[in-house]
């Protein structure tokens, strides 16, 4: 179909031009209505109308988009400018393109300083460089990376605050064809500090809990305070320290007492310092030093240069070096109840340490207060208990406590078959002191008597004041009645010494009544009344004396005391004599030895055997003196016989006591006795008992060997009755063994004794020792011994022990022992 050419009229052109001009003037709503013809001019109009419509829409939409963009940008800026977190946008090369005010605040760099810089080398700490470097190329290509989409905590470098902890959330966005990283970063310094603070607080709470538990849990207070100090040193990194509490002494003077003091620096020098400066359990009365400032002022003391600190008064010699000091006053309310001192923290102390451990200080103050209250309560209880059990005047146990101890002693004595003595005493004429010098002097006298009595007893004994001038002593672990008598006499003598009280010289005597508890013999429940009766008798019989309750005991004790006194006289007046008993060789019937035997020529009681006085001599310490005399006298007598041409090759045999053998100068004394008498050592035979050998075998062997080398011979007396060991028969220089009388006496009736005698004789023969049978009294005994092979005998059959003069006469007569 062909279209007819359009006839263009001026009017139509004007209409089109008008439309264009209206549109050009900005009226984008202008339109030109096409005609119904639909020709080219109409098409032009339609086209222009459509273009106008498109343009109008486009302009509106553009404006809308622009408005929207501006609004979006505004919102974005509002968000980034007001955000508390740093918002950082990184381009494809990791360079900063957005740096909001929060980032400026956190990092200290302005946006101008930050934009364009590489985040990796700028604010990230060096340890992150490598991971950034490795991950960034992948991110550049893919927008992916190990941290994308994650929130993590890391460190960041700031302009003014060094490295700080931050929380970083990273996402990626593709902007204009390249991947950008968006980091939202939060400064978590405060949070971390808070976390650290909470952690530290929890740690301190655990310490506090542990500390309180150690006290509540029943740990012994000293150990608990020691553990507190250890914890303090650990918590503060201190080298050493102390925990003191404040006290008032009995005189009202304040002092500080160390509840715990560390021994970290306890070298020799420091130990000496404390020994010299705190001999009484680390009590400090001196408040003039750094260690007391906290107590005096109630303020925390931080002295990181103590040498130049005006509050310091210097350090005593031997004090451990002090580089830094922290003093903490321990308070309960406003009251200062103690102090903590800590020393030598590396770098010194600061308020932070003090604040961090605030709870700990409080807890320690709490336990110290509880400790003080507990101690005061215990002191009060002790005081009450003391008052109930002790005499206020003398400090000695009172009657109630003494009765308790007496009952305990009785029960124990009964159970273990022990003996003890109850001594009751009072002061003679004490009433006169009270009446003439007054009660204060009387009281002082009683206190002084108490002191003397305490000084006289053993720690295990008990001294008590029963009331008035009446005292009692419980003497435990008694060996025999003589112990009690000796003790009573010592007490009497002690109290007989004059007392000087308020310029008065007071003479007083005491009388003592003694009741003994002997297992199986006496009844402990009657001891008090028995002792009281004895005391009454002592006073009735003239005062300044003692009496036993039991008459027989009394008599025995009196006799021992008398013997003791008489022994001294016997030594002085030379009342001891030696009797001699011959030892005979039954084959030759010749004398081979004489045994020197001690006798006491008592002026009233006649000749006494050793068993009547040796035990007393042993107790009184006279035995060694007597032994020495025996040795010398035997040597002297033997030399005399030799000088008279008697005795021939016979030996002088002398008994040695175990005590004599133990003395250090025994060997010297033997040698001296021989020398003094001028006697050949080969003429002396020393009789020793098995007990002497058994007690100190090595020492005894040495002495015996040295004397043996000089020619002195040894025999073993009473062989078979002691601690027999065949070892010493082999090892020691023994030349003779003596069969004890008890075996010889019964050997004819008792087959066992006969066997023992045979065995001893056989043993002597086998070992090459001579064997002497003692106590031979009958022909039957002699024949038995002869048949058994025993050569040497001693006994009444051949002669009783006799004075030297009698034996001399017998020897002069000559002849064999038949």
């Amino acid at each position, binding site marked *: 179909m062909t279209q007819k050419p359009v006839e263009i009229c001026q009017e139509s052109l004007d209409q089109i031009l008008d439309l264009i001009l209206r549109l050009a003037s900005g009226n984008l709503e202008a339109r030109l209505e*096409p005609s119904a013809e639909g020709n*080219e001019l109409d*098409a032009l109009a339609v086209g222009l109308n459509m273009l106008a419509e498109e343009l109008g829409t486009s302009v509106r939409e553009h404006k809308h988009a622009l408005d929207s963009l501006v609004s979006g940008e505004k919102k974005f800026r509002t968000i980034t400018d007001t955000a508390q977190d740093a918002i950082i946008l990184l381009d494809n090369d990791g360079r900063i393109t957005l740096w909001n005010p929060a980032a400026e605040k956190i990092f200290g760099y302005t946006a101008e300083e930050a934009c364009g810089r590489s985040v990796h080398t700028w604010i990230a700490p060096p340890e992150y460089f490598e991971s950034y470097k490795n991950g960034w190329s992948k991110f550049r290509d893919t927008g992916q990376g190990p941290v994308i989409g994650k929130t993590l905590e890391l460190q960041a470098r700031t302009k003014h605050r060094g490295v700080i902890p931050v929380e970083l959330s990273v996402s990626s966005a593709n902007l204009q064809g390249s991947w950008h990283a968006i980091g939202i970063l939060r400064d978590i310094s405060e949070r971390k500090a808070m976390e650290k603070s909470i952690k530290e607080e929890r740690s301190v709470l655990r310490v506090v809990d542990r500390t309180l538990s150690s006290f509540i849990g029943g740990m012994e207070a000293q150990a608990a305070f020691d553990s507190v100090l250890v914890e303090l040193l650990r918590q503060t990194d201190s080298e050493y320290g102390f925990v003191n509490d404040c006290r008032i002494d009995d005189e009202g003077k304040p002092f500080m007492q160390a509840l715990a003091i560390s021994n970290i620096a306890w070298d020799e020098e420091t130990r000496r310092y404390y020994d010299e400066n705190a001999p009484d359990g680390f009590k400090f009365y001196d408040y003039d030093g750094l260690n007391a400032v906290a107590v005096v002022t109630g303020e925390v003391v931080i002295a990181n240069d103590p040498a130049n600190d005006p509050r310091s008064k210097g350090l005593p010699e031997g004090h451990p070096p002090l580089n830094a000091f922290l003093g903490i006053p321990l308070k309960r309310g406003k009251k200062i109840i103690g102090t903590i001192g800590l020393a030598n923290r590396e770098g010194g102390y600061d308020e932070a340490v003090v604040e961090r451990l605030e709870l700990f200080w409080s807890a320690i103050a709490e336990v110290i207060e509880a400790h003080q209250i507990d101690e005061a309560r215990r002191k009060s209880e002790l005081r009450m208990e003391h008052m109930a059990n002790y005499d206020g005047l003398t400090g000695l146990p009172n009657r109630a406590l003494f009765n308790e101890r007496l009952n305990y002693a009785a029960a124990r004595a009964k159970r273990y078959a022990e003996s003890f003595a109850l001594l009751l005493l009072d002061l003679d004429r004490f009433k006169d002191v009270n009446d003439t010098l007054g009660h204060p002097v009387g009281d002082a006298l009683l206190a002084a008597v108490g002191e003397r009595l305490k000084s006289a007893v053993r720690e295990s004994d008990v001294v008590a004041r029963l009331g008035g001038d009446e005292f009692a002593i419980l003497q435990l672990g008694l060996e025999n009645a003589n112990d009690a008598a000796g003790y009573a006499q010592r007490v009497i003598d002690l109290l007989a010494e004059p007392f000087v009280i308020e310029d008065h010289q007071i003479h007083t005597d005491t009388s003592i009544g003694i009741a003994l508890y002997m297992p199986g013999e006496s009844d402990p429940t009657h001891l008090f009344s028995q002792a009281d009766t004895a005391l009454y008798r002592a006073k009735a019989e003239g005062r300044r004396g003692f009496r036993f309750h039991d008459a027989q005991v009394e008599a025995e004790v009196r006799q021992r005391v008398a013997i003791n006194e008489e022994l001294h006289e016997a030594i002085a007046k030379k009342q001891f004599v030696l009797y001699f008993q011959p030892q005979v060789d039954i084959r030759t019937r010749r004398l081979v030895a004489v045994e020197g035997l001690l006798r006491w020529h008592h002026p009233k009681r006649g000749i006494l055997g050793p068993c009547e006085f040796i035990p007393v001599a042993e107790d009184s310490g006279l035995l060694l003196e007597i032994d020495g005399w025996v040795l010398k006298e035997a040597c002297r007598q033997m030399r005399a016989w030799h000088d008279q041409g008697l005795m021939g090759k016979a030996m002088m045999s002398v008994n040695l006591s175990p005590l004599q053998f133990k003395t250090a100068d025994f060997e010297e004394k033997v040698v001296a006795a021989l020398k003094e008498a001028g006697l050949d050592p080969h003429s002396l035979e020393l009789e020793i008992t098995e007990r002497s050998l058994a007690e100190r075998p090595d020492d005894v062997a040495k002495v015996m060997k040295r004397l043996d080398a000089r020619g002195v011979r040894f025999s073993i007396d009473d062989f078979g009755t002691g601690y027999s060991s065949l070892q010493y028969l082999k090892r020691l220089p023994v030349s003779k063994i003596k069969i004890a009388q008890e075996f010889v006496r019964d050997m004819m009736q008792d087959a066992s004794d006969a066997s023992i005698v045979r065995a001893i004789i056989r043993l002597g023969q086998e070992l090459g020792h001579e064997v002497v049978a003692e106590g031979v009294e009958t022909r039957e005994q002699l024949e038995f011994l002869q048949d058994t092979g025993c050569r040497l005998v001693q006994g009444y059959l051949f002669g009783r022990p006799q004075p030297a003069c009698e034996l001399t006469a017998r020897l002069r007569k000559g002849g064999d022992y038949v």
Partner: protein
Amino acid sequence: MARKRYQTQTAETLLGEDGIVRVKMFSDTRESLADAKENIAVFARLCDGRKRPVMIDLGGSRSISQDARRYYSGEEAGRHICASALIVGSPVSRVLGSFFLGLNKPAYPVRLFTSEAEAIKWLKEFGP
């Protein structure tokens, strides 16, 4: 020959036995968005859930508003139309078709034809 036929304010729409929908705009029509929506609704009913090619004779159109054009090129129309041949036998229809093709960029293939036969031939390439 036509199976179904509908009329709207601005056009007559029928579905040919060849499966091609034919739309003829009434003479001197000025199509608004409402008209476009009516026409697409009719088209959808004819197609019965299937996409179909359509031949539209714009000979009677005097104008098509921007809203209407955007609607024809939009998502709803694209759900029913698989290709569109515009018959532009007059200068006005050619302007309208060109604007539609150039500015609205429909999501389905659109071509301008002056011959219905050629249009049918092209549309059959998209035939049912």
